[in-house]
């Protein structure tokens, strides 16, 4: 890092990039933590916030399986890319004349199965202090979950997904 020199700090000083950025390295600066005399001997310098990442993962999985409009990752652009990079004929878009159809993927629940899940969530009760009252966060009309905290996502990921989805989804997913 030191061979690149220092950058000038400040929001006004514009984007300064070291030579080779994005090609051979992704360094944007020499972190101030390297000034600590023992920092280069630490094996684990950076840890990731697992709860935060778990929340993102949960939202992606749940919204994709429940086919939430606008939130699902199984969208048109993804299907176009699947046609380019993967060998999965059943996932490609079907063109019928001028119309294009996106068939339901095997990992997405059917509409009445989705309603079943939301109905089940609506009736769910937890021990005191275990998680927030998830039944209150369910909006059955819009088929959405609102206001999930990262701890609720952790509880959902660990205990509810293994209960909810295995019977509704086909085997192997």
């Amino acid at each position, binding site marked *: 890092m030191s061979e690149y020199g220092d950058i000038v700090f400040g*929001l006004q*000083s514009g984007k300064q990039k070291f030579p080779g950025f994005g090609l051979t390295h992704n360094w944007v600066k020499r972190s*101030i933590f390297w000034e600590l005399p023992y920092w280069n001997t630490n094996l*684990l310098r950076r*840890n990731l916030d697992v709860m935060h990442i778990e929340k993102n993962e949960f939202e992606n999985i749940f919204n994709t399986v429940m086919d939430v409009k606008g939130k699902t990752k199984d969208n048109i652009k993804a299907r176009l890319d699947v046609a380019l990079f993967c060998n999965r004929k059943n996932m490609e878009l079907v063109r019928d004349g001028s119309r294009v159809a996106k068939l339901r993927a095997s990992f997405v629940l059917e509409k009445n199965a989705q309603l079943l899940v939301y109905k089940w969530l609506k009736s769910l009760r937890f021990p005191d202090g275990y998680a927030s009252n998830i039944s209150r966060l369910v909006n059955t009309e819009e088929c959405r979950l609102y206001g999930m905290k990262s701890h609720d996502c952790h509880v959902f990921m660990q205990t509810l997904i293994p209960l909810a989805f295995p019977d509704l989804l086909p085997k192997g997913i």
Partner: protein
Amino acid sequence: MDYCNGVQGFINFTTSILRNFTHSGIRCPCRKCKNLKFLHQDIATMHLLTKRFMEDYLCWYAHGELFVPDESMKEQVVGSTSSASNMHEVGNENSNPYRNMVMDAMRMSEGNVRECSIVEEEPNTDAARFFDLLKDSDEPLWDGCTNHNKLSAVAHVFTIKLDHGLSEAGYDKIIEWARSILPEGNRLKENFYTAKSMMKPLGLGYQKIDICLNFCVLYYLENAKMTECMTCGYSRYKPRTGRGKTLVAYKKLRYFPITPRLQRLFMSPRTAEHMTWHQSHHAVDGVMVHPSDGEAWKHFNSVHPHFSVELRNVCLGLCTDRFNPFGSFTAPYSCWPVILTVYNLPLGMCMRLEFMFLSMVKPGPSSPGWNIDVCLRPLIDELTQLWSSRALTCNISRKYNFVMRAALMWTINDFPAYEMVSGWSMHGKLAWSYCMENNKAFTLTNGGKASFFYCHRYLLPPNHRYRKNKK
């Protein structure tokens, strides 16, 4: 003549015990200083020769002689709480726990003036505040009141305020009512403001450091006197309005020095005994219950044996994240709290709210981006100092002073903060810092994002069954 020899004997005895020394000398037990002042040994000798010893100071308990309580003292010790009795042995003659609280706070802060160069307050005014507090702890709430003094009353109401989230106005109303039912001439502080200024010397303060609006420079140490930024030329202070003489900075960083907070962990007997848990707990092979059982921690200990040999040295973790104090629906405002956790403590304690120390608050509304390094400067300076020059700390559970050192083990972030703290960009094809430039990421034609599709299998062992998994 005998008295002179006796005084010489006392000084010799005192200087032979290391823990009697603080930065300014030994406790002077003369009639005027009464063990409250720390003086150079020659000055203390002069005091003792001219003013004589204070009354009833037959056992030199404040100077390392073992304290043998007589019958009347024993009753007092049994009557008081356990923490107070612990403090009793360390060298306070008074069984009033509030007096002990003030004494402990004072002892630590006197150590700080030497060790922590960031705190630059005049020790004299500081000491005067402490003596005021000591006076308060001896003054009864009203003439004839036996169970409450001026300090304990305020401390109790403060605790109630904190526990129940009472507002300042609510506090003032309750005090107004309490004063009306107390006898005439009571000494209860009349409102929150005066009570707070009375309790202030007991707390651990923070510093306000001005920072450039664009995060170019921190007006700190060598830059402290600058009035405009040398990089962007933006003024440090807001233009003066009206007649006010004080200059108001555009942006202020709140910095909470970590050294006195760590020292306070050793000051309390309840936490001091847990501060070696990370090395002394029983680790089961192959089971990781605490970061100290992990590979990284053991490697750190083996590389720095001079650090790990002292079990009480503090291992810290740092985490920072964006935080919007005004809820997510209002205008975006990103302030960045930096929080330090102490990994020495047992599992049940180390992630508790009480033992996570807020180290600094970077103000908003804009995010600093890569310039977070500018804000972290005072923290890194103090951590470097804690690693090399150390801080003298009194350990109350083992009853002697030791030199404390501290090391930062790692940082914990989410991905956007990871980029800001580490300097490795989390965007584009090289976001995966483990493989650096040797990965096979590509950009999706339609999605427009970098994709790591099919890049994971080459991390598997050569004959792993997933390698042949076609589906």
